[in-house]
Structure formats: structure tokens, C-alpha cells
């Protein structure tokens, strides 16, 4: 039977690290989030303004190159800068949970970033996406869902990812002049994925009306700041889920009002409850757990500390049976932590290439950093990850890490750090009797005990 300390570290954190003392119960986990804790370091690298400036330089260079082909290297130089920054962002994103002793905070940061998925698909999204977590998620993890929603939806990374900057009210001034029209993408995903969920009481008409309401909200690509352009906002009132927003003149305040209402919609509380329970506790969480979290959400108008507390205080959350499989990122991070890697030794794991490269391993594990397949983020189900090839890739990583560690780690010590009181007699035996040390370590990392939480 795993102790509560083991459950706290694995189910709600990124696993044990030999040099860190971790939270071992509800109070400890919650205090990671409290104001008494030292500030959480930012992870997102240069500001949006700097990113936008670099991207604008690329655009200018591309324009200039159309007239003068000899400027190609200049344009490529900016391209390389964006790509290098993206690799640095990935490195920073991986090292944060490897080095942090506040695993629950880091897990929540990943959870919300996935809930509000943006993905790097081209140069501009590569440039903007990594800032979203630092700007819009982490500052609100202990605040309200409402504030997080507004911060995310107005963030340039989200606006560009879902094409909101290209959405124009058909009868707005710009729309009439250019014939440009709506892009429904952001409107649809806010309703379907971010708030009330796909099972919610809405139809295509609501999506369309909400898309009209959102027109005008865009990004200044030069400064990297959100912007409301009245001249491309659809005039007139819009009716979303039965509520009428705005009047003749388009106004950013109407959008904020609609986002507030969506955040406080009772179906949103349920949707968030299901997602949290599914991410942390079980692919098929019980109705009791869901409604417990849901009622905390609805009682407090989405005050997130109360929501996490509801998740943590429910007995099901401390059940001894591990009902979740670690996603590849969590698998990787927890293996590096178990290896005792600290700030001085983390570098080889963060490089884009190389034997120990975590970014490379994540591509093999089908979870490339910041490149989820769609706005619904990464799948939760164990069966989606523990496939023949998914497990083969985990084994490849396990053998690589095993070979790296064998000079300095004994499998028995590794076992007690990585699995603590979760080690079964089988894995203990296999690890200690393996012919070579690296095999023993690899077998521990391959075990269900290490992969489940």
C-alpha cells in the first residue's frame, strides 16, 4: 500500500527527487499554491513584445526579399532566431518541473495549458505559443477561472492559433470594404472546449452569434499586444445561449461580459470538474467525485483554490489503486527527477538533439512539446498511450537513461527513490537481479508501478 506521501508525490506531482522534500498531504499540496510560498519562477522567456518585434523583422525581411532575392540569408537569419528561441522555450518548459519542489503547482500549470491548448504549427505560432502559459495561465492558477479565461482568450498566442485575427464582421466597415468575413474557430472552441463543453446546451446559431460578438478582438502583430479594432467588429447585438450582448455599437466590454457569463455557467463548473478528475484521478472518475468538485466550483464562482481543495479532499483521490497512466511528458520528467538530476546536470536533457534529449524523446513518444494535435489537447486515456509503439518508445528511453545512470546509480537505490513504497515484489526482484545495472534501472522505469499513478 502506497503511503499518502507517495500518492501526493506521484498522483499530484512529478514524482520523487532524491534532493527534495515534497508535500505529503492535502495541506502540504495546497500550501504549494499559497501566498506564503516564494514566487513561482516564470518559464516563458522573452516578452510578447520582444517576440512580436522579432517576428515583424522576419515579415519585413520576407517582404524585402520578394524584391531582392539576395536578401534571402537575412530572412533565414530571423527564421533561425525564432526557431532557436522556440527550442529555448521548450528547454525552459521541461526544466521547470524537473527542478521544482512544487510538483502540484507544476501539474496544474500543465493541466490548464492543455485545457487551453495552443500549438506551434508555423513560425508565428512557434514564436507566440510559449508565452501563453507564463502570461495567462501561471498568474491565474490560484485565482478564478473567469480571470484565467479572459487572460487566455485575449492572449495573442490564442488569437493567432485559432485565427481570430482573421475574423471580420461581414457588415463591419472593414467587412463591407473588403468582403472578408467570420472565422468561427475561437468562438467554437471557447464554448466547446474551454467552458461549457461539447455536450452543453448550444447549437450552431450560438457559435455563429458568439463569433460575431468576438469580431474586433485581435492582436497588434507589431507590438504583440491584444487590440480591439472597432472597424472590423460586427455591429449590432448578439444572442449567445439566450443572453443578448451589446447594442448597435460594438464594444470590447460586451465580449468580457459574455466570457464572464460563460465562465459562470453551471455547465462550465461540471466540465472543469470532469476534466480535473479525469486528469488527476481516473480516466473514468466517479459521479461522486465530479459533483463534489463541480459544487465547489459553482459555490465559489470558480475560485480555483476551492476547486483544487475539493479535488484533494475527496477520499477517491487517495485510493491506493493507481488509476492513471503518466502521459509521456510526465513519464519523462519523473524519470529525470528520480535520477536526481539538478540544475547543474540538467542541460543534456534539454537539448533539441542527442541521446538524452527530452524534446527528441517526446517526439518519439508522440507528445512533442507545445504541438498537441488539435485544440482539444492531449488524450487522457491510458489506452491511447500504452500502445505497442508507445510502450516501445518508453522502453527506449528507459534503456537510454539506464545506461547513462549506471556509472553512478545502484538499481536498489534508484528503486527506493523512484517507486518508494509502491515497488512490487516482482519489480524489486527484477531490478536487483538484472544482470547489468542499466537493465535494472530500465526495468524500474518500464514497470507499471512507475508508469501508473
Amino acid at each position, binding site marked *: 500500500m502506497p503511503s499518502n506521501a507517495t500518492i501526493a508525490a506521484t498522483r499530484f506531482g512529478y514524482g520523487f527527487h532524491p534532493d527534495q522534500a515534497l508535500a505529503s498531504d492535502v495541506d502540504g499540496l495546497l500550501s504549494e499554491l499559497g501566498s506564503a510560498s516564494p514566487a513561482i519562477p516564470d518559464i516563458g522567456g522573452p516578452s510578447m513584445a520582444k517576440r512580436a518585434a522579432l517576428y515583424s523583422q522576419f515579415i519585413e525581411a520576407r517582404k524585402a526579399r520578394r524584391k531582392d532575392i539576395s536578401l534571402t540569408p537575412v530572412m533565414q537569419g530571423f527564421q533561425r532566431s525564432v526557431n532557436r528561441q522556440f527550442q529555448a522555450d521548450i528547454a525552459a518548459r521541461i526544466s521547470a518541473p524537473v527542478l521544482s519542489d512544487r510538483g502540484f503547482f507544476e501539474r496544474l500549470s500543465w493541466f490548464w495549458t492543455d485545457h487551453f491548448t495552443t500549438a506551434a504549427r508555423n513560425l508565428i505560432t512557434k514564436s507566440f505559443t510559449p508565452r501563453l502559459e507564463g502570461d495567462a495561465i501561471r498568474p491565474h492558477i490560484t485565482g478564478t477561472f473567469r480571470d484565467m479565461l479572459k487572460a487566455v482568450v485575449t492572449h495573442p498566442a490564442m488569437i493567432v492559433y485559432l485565427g481570430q485575427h482573421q475574423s471580420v464582421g461581414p457588415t463591419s466597415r472593414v467587412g463591407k470594404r473588403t468582403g472578408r468575413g467570420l*472565422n468561427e474557430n475561437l468562438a467554437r472552441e471557447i464554448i466547446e472546449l474551454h467552458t461549457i463543453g461539447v455536450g452543453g446546451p448550444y447549437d450552431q446559431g450560438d457559435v455563429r452569434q458568439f463569433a460575431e460578438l468576438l469580431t474586433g478582438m485581435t492582436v497588434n502583430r507589431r507590438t504583440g499586444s491584444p487590440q480591439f479594432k472597432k472597424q472590423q467588429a460586427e455591429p449590432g447585438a448578439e444572442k449567445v445561449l439566450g443572453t443578448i450582448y451589446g447594442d448597435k455599437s460594438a464594444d470590447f466590454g460586451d465580449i468580457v461580459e459574455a466570457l464572464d457569463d460563460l465562465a459562470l455557467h453551471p455547465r462550465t463548473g461540471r466540465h472543469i470538474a470532469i476534466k480535473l478528475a479525469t486528469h488527476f484521478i481516473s480516466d473514468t472518475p466517479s459521479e461522486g467525485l465530479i459533483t463534489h468538485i463541480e459544487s465547489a466550483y459553482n459555490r465559489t464562482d470558480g475560485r480555483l483554490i476551492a476547486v483544487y481543495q475539493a479535488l484533494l479532499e475527496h477520499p477517491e483521490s487517495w485510493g491506493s489503486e493507481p488509476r492513471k497512466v503518466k502521459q509521456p511528458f510526465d513519464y519523462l520528467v519523473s524519470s529525470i527527477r528520480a535520477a536526481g538530476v539538478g540544475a547543474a546536470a540538467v542541460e543534456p536533457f534539454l537539448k533539441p538533439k542527442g541521446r538524452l534529449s527530452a524534446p527528441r524523446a517526446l517526439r518519439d513518444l508522440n507528445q512533442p512539446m507545445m504541438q498537441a494535435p488539435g485544440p482539444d489537447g492531449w488524450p487522457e486515456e491510458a489506452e491511447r498511450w500504452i*500502445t505497442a509503439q*508507445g510502450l516501445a518508445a518508453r522502453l527506449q528511453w528507459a534503456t537510454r537513461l539506464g545506461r547513462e545512470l549506471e556509472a553512478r546509480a545502484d538499481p536498489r537505490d534508484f528503486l527506493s527513490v523512484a517507486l518508494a513504497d509502491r515497488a512490487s515484489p*516482482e519489480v524489486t526482484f527484477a531490478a536487483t537481479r538484472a544482470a547489468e545495472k542499466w537493465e535494472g534501472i530500465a526495468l524500474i522505469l518500464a514497470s507499471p508501478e512507475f508508469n501508473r499513478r
Partner: protein
Amino acid sequence: MAQTKRDFLKGALSIGCCAAASPLLTPVTVAATPGENRLVVIILRGAMDGLGVAAPYGDPDYAALRPKIGRDPEGGLIDMDGRFGMHPKLAPLAPLWQAGEVSFAHAVSTPYRDKRSHFDGQDILEAGTAGIASADNGWINRALSHMTGTSIDTAYSVGRENMLITTGPNPARSWAPGAKLPLGEDERALLQMIYAKDPLFAEAAAAAADLSLTSGKRKAQGAKEAEVLAKYAAERLNEQARIAAFSIGGWDTHVAQPAALNRPVIRLASAITTLKDKLGGNWSRTLVVAMTEFGRTARENGSKGTDHGTGGAALLAGGALRGGRIYADWPGLGQNDLYKGRDLTPTEDVRHYPAWALHTMFGIEKSAIVRDVFPGLSMGANRRFIA
């Protein structure tokens, strides 16, 4: 007492479960197959624009709906029958059209309506169901229950993603070209012991052990990826596999469609020509169905793209196809013809094509198809698209 790893293994294997039943130690065996016909299903993720890939340039309303992004044969469209033209980047398929080995089913869709979500749309497409609520396993997997002579090697999903379409109660393979199991035989046996009480891990490891033997060439990315997937699928189909599925993404062309559509179309063309090339003589017994979650808006949008729609097209190919013609009950593109005034109206359930393929090529009873494989489908008239 010194116990070696080998001694322990012997003990574990004889006590735990018998070695004969141990999948990790079982070599790939030659099994019976359900006949010689082959079906390849390509899932086109992101909602392919049927009106751009098989463009109805002969429809009197087409040009007005697509003033900036529409094409006609003078603009590079490859004419098929005087009414429809293929996207210019499908040029490698033009000879196959001439040979009757390519065609399109048009104005088709799944039963999914109105919410136009990629994820639900794809789940319904792969589940083969009428609604999202029952979409928890895939139609290829359920079809296996009604075929004779099947084995775990009959159905393959190819690629790193695990596809819903082959997921379900029947064993099916899922593998990416280039993946390997890094452990030797002794270590695999140790693994088997560790996994003995955990079926999910045990089965995945067993499959990985088998599949490592058939791993194929290195993985590839981008344009080459479709070719690598198709080649691996063909290799499996040339052995015991009879149904293979993989997916090609990149169809979500909200912006700058004329450029954005080129890449996925090139991938699709290359997948088809690779299948034909690598299947050799088996191509004559193969049907390829490439389908997408829904179509796109009939009208182009403000950013030279198209948004999520309803009716669309499916590409059919293969030596078993009676191709060189468009299969469609064409609804027209006039304002009153459009679904909800915005989308191509679907006049046929896209599931008809795989349904008739399963019936004709694998002998699955129609009653089983409409009850279990594609619940609620009405088979309708046989279009006799299989030669």
C-alpha cells in the same frame, strides 16, 4: 543463496503462467486470412474541402461561391467528366482515373450534423456510429467480428497515433514504421514478469515484441511521411493484413486555401501511388477509401479559406474499384440547395462505401453491417463501385 536471473525467469515463467501462452515468446505465426481482398482506409484529418479537391466547376453556381479560390480547367483543374475536376496536385492520379482506378464519392457525409467539431466529427467517422455517445470503438475493429479466418494480423493501423477506427474488442495491430523494442530476449522475459498482473502493459509489450520483427524503414516526417506509412501498410497487406488504416492531416484550410491545400493533397496523391506501386499484383484486389470528418463551407470565407461545413467528398481508389466516374446524387450549389444555406448538402451517407466494401469484399452480411459495424445505416442501393 545465489539465484541467477535465468533461474528466476524459469521459475517465474513456470509458476506465473505457462510459457506457451506467453505472447512475448511467441513468434509471429502464419495464420489463416479472410480471403485475398484488401481494404485501405485513409482518414483525412482536419475536414478536406471536397469542393476544392474534386471541384464541381461545371455547376453554374460554383464560380460565384468561390471567386478567389475556385478553379476551372483553365486554372489548372484536371477535368474528370466535364462537370468535376481534380485538384492540380492530384496530377499523379490522372492516369489512374483514366484506367478506372480512381473516383470520388461526392456530396457525402457521416451522420454528424451542425456542431462541426473536428474531434467529434473524426470520432464519429472512425467509430462508424450515428452519434458521438456510442463512439467508443472503431468500425474496422467491429467488422473483424464478422469476418472468418481473422487473426491479430488482419487489421493494422499504421503511424504513431493510436487510431479509434481499429480500437475495440478484437485484437488489431498498431505500429509506426521505424519503431523498435530495445531489449533482448532475457530482458523481455523479465518485463513479462513485471507486466504479468497488468494486461494493458502486457499486451502492449507483446505486440511491440512481435512488431519489432517487421519494423520497416526509418520514420519520416512531412511530405515523405504519407509515403512511408503507405509503404509500410502495403508491406503488411502483402502478408497477412487485409485491412489497413492510417491518416493524413493538414486539411483544415481556414486561411489562404490555394496554398494551404497543396501539401495535404500532395501527400494523399503520394500515398495512393505508393500503395499501387508497393502492392504490386495485390493492387487489383485492393480498394482504398479516403474519407474526412466533414466538408467545408461552399462559400469561401474572408481569408481566402473555407470554414467547417457538412457535405464533402471521399476519394476511392484501387484495382478493385470500378472508377473513372463520379458517384454522386448532386444536390446543386444554388442558395436553396445548400445545407443551412452554407454547406454542400449531403445526399448520401459516406458509410455506404466502406459498408458495401465490407459486404462485397469480405462477405459480411448486410444485416450484421447495419446492426453492428455501422449501426443505423441503411445500405440503400448497391452502386456497384467494386469491379
